[in-house]
């Protein structure tokens, strides 16, 4: 998504939430319009997520923040939980919500047990895992597996797999047989080459190398 003009507002994913960072030069109308478009496109992805507004580059007026907050809530049920005004000045909007320190969040997530799916994922199935995801069966075309960490498929991957969905670029996708319709790791998307490919004897792994998703046989 690189172009000469920067995006009016950037949506960055961290381990447990999204950060909205408006561009310094963008007008408020532009920001709202672009954000609405993105929410429309990926409504399910953002649905009921928690977001932070980072205003260190571009300040917004109070009524503008309220308008943004209302729009987020109405469009995709997104909760605006924090507003970051400067490097060390963070405004928490959600009083009852106690935020553990970042390190604590990480360790808690690591303890999260992998989700195990004991059947073939057929077309129309969506599996979302808060940690690793293990599928004991195939993932057929039209099915989607999304995991915060690694995805391991003991079968053929023919559908879509999204590892590291919250931005973990070290996440990997393992499959006994790799014929995906699309691979996603963190914010990268890869399409398989068109035409047939040689059938490897062993399982394959997809991971990010040199800023690209690559499928390798170990």
């Amino acid at each position: 998504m690189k172009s000469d003009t920067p995006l009016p507002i950037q949506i960055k994913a961290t381990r447990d939430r999204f950060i909205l960072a408006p561009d310094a030069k963008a007008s408020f109308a532009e920001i709202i319009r672009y954000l609405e478009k993105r929410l429309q496109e990926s409504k399910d992805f953002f649905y009921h997520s928690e977001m932070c507004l980072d205003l260190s580059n571009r300040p917004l007026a109070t009524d503008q923040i309220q308008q943004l907050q209302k729009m987020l809530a109405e469009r995709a049920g997104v909760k605006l939980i924090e507003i970051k005004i400067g490097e060390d000045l963070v405004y928490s909007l959600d009083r009852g919500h106690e935020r553990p320190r970042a390190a604590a969040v990480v360790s808690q997530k690591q303890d999260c047990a992998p989700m195990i799916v004991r059947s073939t994922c057929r077309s129309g199935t969506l599996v979302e895992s808060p940690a690793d995801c293990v599928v004991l069966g195939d993932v057929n075309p039209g099915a989607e597996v999304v995991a915060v960490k690694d995805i391991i498929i003991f079968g053929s991957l023919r559908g879509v797999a999204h590892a590291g969905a919250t931005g973990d670029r070290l996440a990997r996708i393992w499959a006994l047989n790799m014929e995906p319709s699309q691979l996603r790791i963190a914010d990268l998307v890869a399409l398989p080459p068109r035409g047939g490919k040689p059938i490897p004897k062993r399982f394959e792994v997809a991971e990010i190398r040199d800023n690209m998703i690559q499928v390798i046989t170990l």
Partner: protein
Amino acid sequence: MAGKTIVVTSGKGGVGKTTTVANIGTMLAKKKYNVCMIDADIGLRNLDVVMGLENRIVYNLIDVIEGNCRKAQAMIRDRKLTNLCMIPAAQTREKNAINPEQMKNLCQELAEEFDFVFIDCPAGIEQGFKNAVAGAQTAIVVTTPEVSAIRDADRVIGLLEAGLLRDIHLIINRLNQRMVKKGDMMSTADILSLLAVPLLGVVPESEEVVISTNRGVPLVHQKGSKAGRAFSNIASRLNGEDVPIEEDKSDGFFAKVKRFMQS
């Protein structure tokens, strides 16, 4: 003993659900079983056309469910076989005129009377599909060797499994052996590896099917038709008989001559 209730479904339209119901139903009736076929495609009925019974419709499925007539009044007997009958769908109503619970009750009542109850499911996965599937113990998924049809079949199998219907069989319709050999069409093995459900039979592509549909006479009445034989084998397998899946025999002129000499 209560009979079997079988829904024939596919997801995608035009793959041959109605033709399958008509042929398997007729074949089982020829085997002296009592068979009832229900057209659950409300608003777009055509099982009656394929069976050639269109002009005999007085009451329909919705009349039965709403209690406007007795069950026996809506059942139309086949022209040739007295132990075969069908309940047509209503053409002037919509799919949400009935609900899955009513359909379930009807299927249960019919299963008491008949050996086999076939339900012709509408295309799609909306209300009509849910109604049709509600009363069935067994499902037959029909697909053609096209990517789109297989994708929809896969989705439908997923929905059936989610609805706790575990007895699912597959029919591959309109397979063209010549194209499979050239690598232009997915083979039976390809389809099975993707869908992973037991295969009930493969029906070859044939012009006879269109002709028989237009005439309103199911293909299994016609002797010497390849597709008709495939359907009658499917009916036998459904009945628990052990019939091997047909091998491809169209392997050229010389092989045919050779087989002719041998026989």
